[in-house]
């Protein structure tokens, strides 16, 4: 997927994550020239239209949420079978990894992160959007430690898919509320429960309920009381225990009524306003301050890098640091004083020199712009004018070696002599900027090369597609000018993109009567491929081919897929597949194995012909005919047998009768 451009706009640069439902790519938005994250739905979801509609609807709804603690959704789109969401690119890590890296967080920091997450939820809940999958994996920490909640509503969309079938891992239920574990009605308070679990994990570095299988974890959410976080980290205030345990109440009515109410308590705790209270009845004070708090919450809260546990260390170091800072100051003062003295000395000498050498008169600086640098230097030397080393700059129009700027401007007079204070500064064109077309881009992915040439080398790539037997499709064959040449920035470079080998016309071979393996072999030798196999879905690989599409003799391009129709092997009902008429009515296909007679020598390929006869008619019906590799014996065949009727299998090999076998099923 990397290197692909979605809807001509989002260039997928690298995969940065993968979840149960989607892969996430870092991508470049060509229109707005910014990094974005593109979440691409996995294959197994793309056939379920009802789910897709729901997924897009949820994504759009979440896209309406604009909040500093919510990962913004920019776009929802699809290209062919690729369904994707374009989101704000966050340069950071998940809260899960943040906890993994830092261990349990200081309770003050945990409280701040929880407040940020809750303020995001408050905003969403006001828009009737429930997250339903709050967990540290869905909370991103930016490089400035701003928590941002992602994947609003998407979990819910995913759960409606009837197509998905997952072999479960424990992770999916660690943060589920009891009502979610039961599959019951979920609402805002389910999110609050999950925030409680997340806060527990931030405080203690562990989830409250763990087991080696998801069912046990779910049961614990339903039945077990969590331990207080302070059992794992004694410095956690009792009031914090109370907040976590209230958010995690089994009964929704006992939890916080709203995200805002929980924020209020965390806020008071942080400010030292919550002391001990009996029970967890709503705090009247919280309601009183809600107006101003609400504004604050809706504006978003950022957690600044604040590490209480590191503060102590910092303080211990501070005395040493003091000495260091003082030394730096002394050194700086020394340098400045020294510099002033040197400059003073120079000025004095210049002035004295000028006085002592009255012959030296100021000389007018002429116009050097447009002159070659050699001429300019020659003129300066001749006039004994001081100058500094010329500066070279790329220039789109002025040829290399021509002066493009000067200081002082023409007409100003300066003192001659190499030591004079005012020196002539010249800027010289270095000509047009040149770059070398890399030599290692043959066979490279076309899109990557195009991006590199355009963005890094500032060239104008142009694409020409052509066939190549040597270079795989989508890769670079050559460039014009050729690889390794030096070219001016901004110039056009033609990149030849391979269409793969040119496809010749071939004639479709006759595949009827062949097995899957033989058909594959025949198709491969003609450079054709196997297309759809009918009857769809099952058992098509068994038995022999009764029809094909396109038909034998049709001229087609190489690599054309040929659809194969197998006799309907196993549908007992007569089935709806092609070839159903072959089997006698009421018969069932049964598996038999054809054995090589032990007392005969066969070559590597055995010409096998198998007939069967049924009950009354005794008519020999061809069941199987073709060349079979010796190694494939005992060779499986499926015989249509009518229960209660005698069926005989007649086996010929290399044109000779070998043996008969009776197959019988009781009625």
């Amino acid at each position, binding site marked *: 997927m990397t290197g692909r451009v979605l809807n001509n706009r989002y260039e997928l640069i690298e995969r940065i994550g993968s979840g149960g439902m989607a892969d996430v790519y870092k991508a470049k938005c060509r229109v707005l020239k910014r990094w974005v994250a593109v979440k691409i739905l*996995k*294959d*197994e979801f793309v*056939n*379920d239209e009802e789910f897709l509609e729901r997924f897009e609807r949820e994504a759009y709804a979440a896209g309406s949420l604009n909040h500093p603690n919510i990962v913004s959704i920019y776009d929802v789109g699809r290209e062919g079978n690729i369904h994707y969401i374009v989101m704000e690119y966050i340069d950071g890590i998940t809260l899960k990894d943040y906890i993994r890296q830092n261990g349990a967080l200081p309770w003050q920091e945990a409280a701040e992160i929880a407040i940020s997450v809750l303020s995001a939820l408050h905003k969403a809940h006001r828009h009737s959007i429930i997250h339903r999958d709050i967990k540290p994996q869905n909370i991103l920490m930016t490089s400035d430690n701003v928590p941002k909640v992602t994947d609003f509503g998407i979990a819910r969309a995913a*759960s*409606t898919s*009837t*197509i*998905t*079938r*997952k*072999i*479960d891992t424990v992770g*999916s*239920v660690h943060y589920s509320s009891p009502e*979610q*574990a*039961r*599959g019951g009605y979920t609402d805002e308070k389910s999110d609050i429960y999950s925030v409680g679990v997340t806060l527990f994990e931030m405080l203690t570095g562990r989830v409250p309920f763990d087991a080696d*299988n*998801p*069912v046990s974890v*779910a*049961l614990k959410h*339903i039945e077990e009381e969590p331990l207080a976080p302070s059992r794992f980290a004694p410095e956690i205030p009792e009031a914090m225990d109370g907040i976590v345990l209230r958010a995690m109440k089994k009964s929704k009515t006992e939890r916080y009524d709203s995200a805002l109410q929980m924020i209020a308590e965390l806020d008071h705790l942080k400010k030292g306003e919550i002391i001990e209270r009996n029970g967890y009845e709503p705090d009247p004070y919280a309601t009183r301050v809600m107006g101003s708090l609400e504004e604050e919450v809706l504006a978003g809260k950022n957690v600044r890098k604040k590490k209480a546990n590191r503060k102590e260390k910092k303080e211990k170091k501070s005395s040493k640091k003091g000495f260091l800072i003082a030394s730096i100051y002394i050194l700086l003062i020394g340098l400045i004083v020294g510099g002033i003295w040197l400059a003073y000395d120079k000025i004095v000498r210049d002035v004295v020199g000028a006085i002592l050498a009255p012959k030296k008169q100021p000389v007018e600086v002429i116009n050097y712009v447009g002159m070659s640098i050699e001429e300019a230097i020659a003129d300066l030397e001749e006039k004994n004018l001081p100058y500094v080393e010329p500066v070279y700059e790329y220039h789109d129009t002025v040829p290399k070696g021509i002066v493009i700027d000067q200081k002082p401007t023409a007409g100003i007079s300066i003192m001659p002599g190499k030591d004079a204070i005012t020196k002539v500064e010249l800027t010289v064109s270095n000509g047009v900027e040149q770059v070398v077309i890399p030599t290692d881009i043959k066979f490279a992915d076309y899109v990557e090369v195009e991006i590199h040439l355009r963005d890094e080398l500032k060239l104008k790539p142009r694409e020409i597609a052509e066939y190549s037997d040597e270079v795989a499709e989508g890769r670079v064959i050559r460039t014009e000018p050729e690889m390794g040449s030096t070219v001016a920035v901004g110039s056009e470079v033609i990149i030849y993109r391979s269409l793969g080998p040119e496809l010749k016309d071939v004639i479709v071979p006759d595949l009827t009567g062949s097995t899957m393996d033989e058909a594959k072999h025949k198709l491969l030798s003609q450079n054709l491929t196997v297309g759809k196999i009918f009857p*769809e*879905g*099952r*058992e098509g690989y068994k038995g022999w081919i009764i029809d094909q599409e396109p038909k034998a003799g049709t001229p087609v391009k190489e690599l054309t897929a040929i659809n194969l129709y197998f006799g309907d092997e*196993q*549908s*007992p*009902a007569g089935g709806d597949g092609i070839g159903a008429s072959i089997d006698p009515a009421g018969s*069932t296909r*049964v*598996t*038999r*194995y054809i054995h090589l007679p032990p007392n005969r020598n066969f070559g590597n390929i055995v010409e096998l012909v198998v007939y069967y006869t049924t009950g009354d008619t005794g008519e020999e019906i061809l069941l199987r005919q073709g060349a079979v590799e010796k190694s494939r014996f005992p060779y499986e065949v499926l015989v249509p*047998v009518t*229960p209660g009727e005698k069926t005989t299998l007649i086996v010929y090999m290399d044109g000779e009768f070998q043996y008969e076998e*009776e*197959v*019988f*099923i*009781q*009625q």
Partner: protein
Amino acid sequence: MKYAAISDKGIIREQNEDFWNIILDMNGNPQAFIVADGMGGHQAGDIASKMAVESISKSISCYLEKKNAGNTIEQVLTEAINKANEVIFQYALDNLNGSSIGTTLTAGLLCNGKLTIAHIGDSRFYLIRNETIEKLTRDHSFVGELVEKGILDQEEAKVHPLRNQITRALGYEKEVQIDFYSLDVMPDDIYLFCTDGLTMKLSSDELLSMLREEKDLNIILRNMVALANERGGDDNITAIAVKI
């Protein structure tokens, strides 16, 4: 003994990820029955179930031809299933770029008047005897286990968001744990092996009454599939019915 089998991809899905097989002995009598419901992303859902049925069929066929003395039926099935597990697990490692596939498996092997059932996942085996139906196998699924603990009832399980999650699968991990059940074969017993495409849509009472109303197993299975499809048909449906 009469038997019939059916497999239908349902009306929503694009492919049938269920596979089944009935294995006959040298005399043409059915000896083993297998249903498997595969899963795995990236359109690889049918690989595991197909490989499981093929591999186990081959092992059982070999056993039926040789009848290795000394091995119990459970040992035979364990060996066959472990081999299939290894084959699928290795296939995923070699070909699927880190993603795993797996399959449910419910297989029954007849021997000396006993039916031995090996079971992994949430396909099911039902015993119909004396006008009653009994689900013999335990569902290895998230909701199935919660039903067993009395947290959910059958109806809640059918609409639970996690109803599709199974907790055990063949080929998903390096080793697999197999549940075994065994029963004495009695005259007029009916055995039903099926995938969850059937049982998510039809209750066991419905299955029982359909089995009682009609004699022809083929017709019964066709009716069951038709009813499951009528109720959504959002999953593949596979069933084998055996009447002693």
